[in-house]
């Protein structure tokens, strides 16, 4: 198949399935897929490859990973603390790094460091760390109790079940309405120079970030800046207040989209899907039928698992929209505002008038030049054509005068 017979490259069909096309492009590809059997078949193959790949599960991470990390992390906290204390830093630098045989080496060294500094350092931080890890170990127990499959039977099927990735506990029901908040602010500023840095600083102060930022400085119009900020929802009000300090507010609006229902609906569907998965795993555990049926069940489990993971991803991104409010900021330099008739400082208006006057002069000179260049060839042509007859007439008119004298 070539792109001459299809309006899209094969790669674009794949990008469409991966959610990598712009909305417009995606709509056209989707429409084409409904009509073109060849491209639809390609899409189906792509999905098939992904679905087969999803069969490749990996055994659960060994429990020692958690334990070792816990030890290394206590070690890390110690290093941080002694560095902060500002002395004997060299000693902590000598603690073997976490990579090789760090458990044995670091345990000894750490014990020494603890002895040395236990009396001189506040112990609060260390306690915090161990609390955190106690909690982790506890949560872990809970999770394995919930999800670990029974090890009663042996064999391939059991191994497959053991490898089925454990589901995280169902998402908690939201206790308060979930609202994805958006705000838009338009400003006019006098001083455009430090603006970008100020906007970034505001976002940073509020633990937010700048999702996109565009600034334009056209030659003979006001400079503009538009930015999308993502700000922790709790800080939205204070962020907007700070942004409004940057200039004169032209427009401001806020809205909130209630997404609680979307969230709970999806949570319910996730719960159902998890129950289905659990039932299928049961079927597999008790299955005595043919290999063919076992495989079919396994594929069905993989499919349900895929759905669950998709829903989990959607749920996470919805959560992000709730956690981080979106602020659309657009800023214009004062110059353009004055052209639009808003009252501005006399100085600015005089300067604009001077600029306009200068531009008018320049443009009239250029205009004359352009006119001259455009008309010159025509003038020359007609001059040449008319020169001989004009001269003849001129001579005829003068001759009688000469003969009379």
């Amino acid at each position, binding site marked *: 198949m070539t792109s001459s017979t299809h309006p899209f490259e094969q790669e674009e069909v794949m990008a469409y399935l991966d959610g990598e096309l712009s909305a417009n492009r995606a709509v056209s590809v989707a429409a084409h897929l409904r009509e073109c059997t060849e491209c639809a078949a390609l899409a189906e193959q792509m999905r098939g490859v*992904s679905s087969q790949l999803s069969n490749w599960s*990996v055994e659960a*991470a*060994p429990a020692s*990973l*958690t334990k070792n990390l816990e030890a290394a992390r206590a070690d890390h906290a110690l290093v941080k603390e002694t560095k902060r204390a500002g002395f004997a830093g060299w000693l902590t630098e000598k603690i073997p790094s976490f990579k090789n045989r760090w458990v044995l080496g670091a345990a000894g060294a750490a014990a020494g460091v603890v002895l040395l500094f236990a009396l001189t350092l506040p112990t609060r931080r260390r306690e*915090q760390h161990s609390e955190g890890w106690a909690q982790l170990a506890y949560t872990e127990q809970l999770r394995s109790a919930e999800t670990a499959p029974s090890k009663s039977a042996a064999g391939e099927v059991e191994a497959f079940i053991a490898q089925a990735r454990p589901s*995280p506990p169902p998402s908690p029901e939201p206790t308060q309405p979930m609202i994805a908040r958006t705000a838009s602010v338009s400003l006019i500023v006098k001083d455009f120079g430090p603006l970008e840095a100020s906007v970034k600083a505001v976002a940073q102060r509020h633990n937010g*970030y700048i999702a996109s930022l565009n600034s334009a400085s056209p030659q003979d119009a006001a400079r503009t800046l538009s930015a999308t900020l993502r700000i922790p929802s709790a800080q939205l009000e204070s962020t907007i207040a700070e942004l409004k300090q940057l200039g004169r507010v032209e427009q401001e609006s806020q809205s909130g989209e209630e997404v609680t229902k979307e969230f709970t609906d999806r949570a319910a569907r996730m719960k159902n899907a998890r129950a289905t998965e659990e039932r299928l795993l049961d079927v597999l555990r008790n299955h005595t039928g043919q290999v063919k049926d076992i495989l079919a069940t396994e594929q069905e489990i993989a499919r349900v698992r895929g759905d669950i993971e998709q829903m989990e991803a959607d749920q996470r991104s919805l959560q992000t929209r709730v956690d*981080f409010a979106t602020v659309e900021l657009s800023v214009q330099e004062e110059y353009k505002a004055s052209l639009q008739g808003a009252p501005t400082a006399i100085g600015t208006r005089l300067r604009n008038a001077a600029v306009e006057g200068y531009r008018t002069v320049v443009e009239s000179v250029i205009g004359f030049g352009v006119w001259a260049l455009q008309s010159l060839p025509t003038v020359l042509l007609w001059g040449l054509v008319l020169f001989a007859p004009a001269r003849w007439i001129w001579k005829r008119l003068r001759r009688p005068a000469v003969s009379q004298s």
Partner: protein
Amino acid sequence: MTSDEQLILELQQGSDEAFTELFLRYRERVYGFFRRRMNDAAQAEELAQETFLAVLRAAQRYEPRATFRAYLFGIAFNILAAHRRKSVLNPTQPDRAPDEPSDPSGTNPENVIWVRQAVERLEAAEREVLLLREFEELSYEEIAKILRAPVNTVRSRLFRARMALREILAIAPRNLRGRK
């Protein structure tokens, strides 16, 4: 449920609970990242641990313009790359022992082994893009950043990888073609 990005920001402020939660959320996936790329389970575990420690040590370096997932697997990828360089210099600890059976636990159902072997037959650069997309679920742009390659290159490698994989899987001894 707090978002990953919120959690790493809390970790930057020194929250231990935030790290614990991130670890619980990503433990399996980071272990899986290494496990799918090497046969040595102990080695995979060690590198997974190194990855989380790097997150802990370099939390300040996270910038909220990237998703935490992309940031995390970027770190994991760098750690894997460093490990591979070391293994080349020091071949006493090979990444893949040639005699070792492709399936270390010996208990995988056949179709898992088959998929795994099929992926191993892909070209290295194409395989990497495929794994980052299918298992780490990164966007083309995030993969491009990690591999320091143009997005278009990522897209065409991914396309070639999937087409090749389809060919390899099509000659399966049993028909394991995907669902409907």
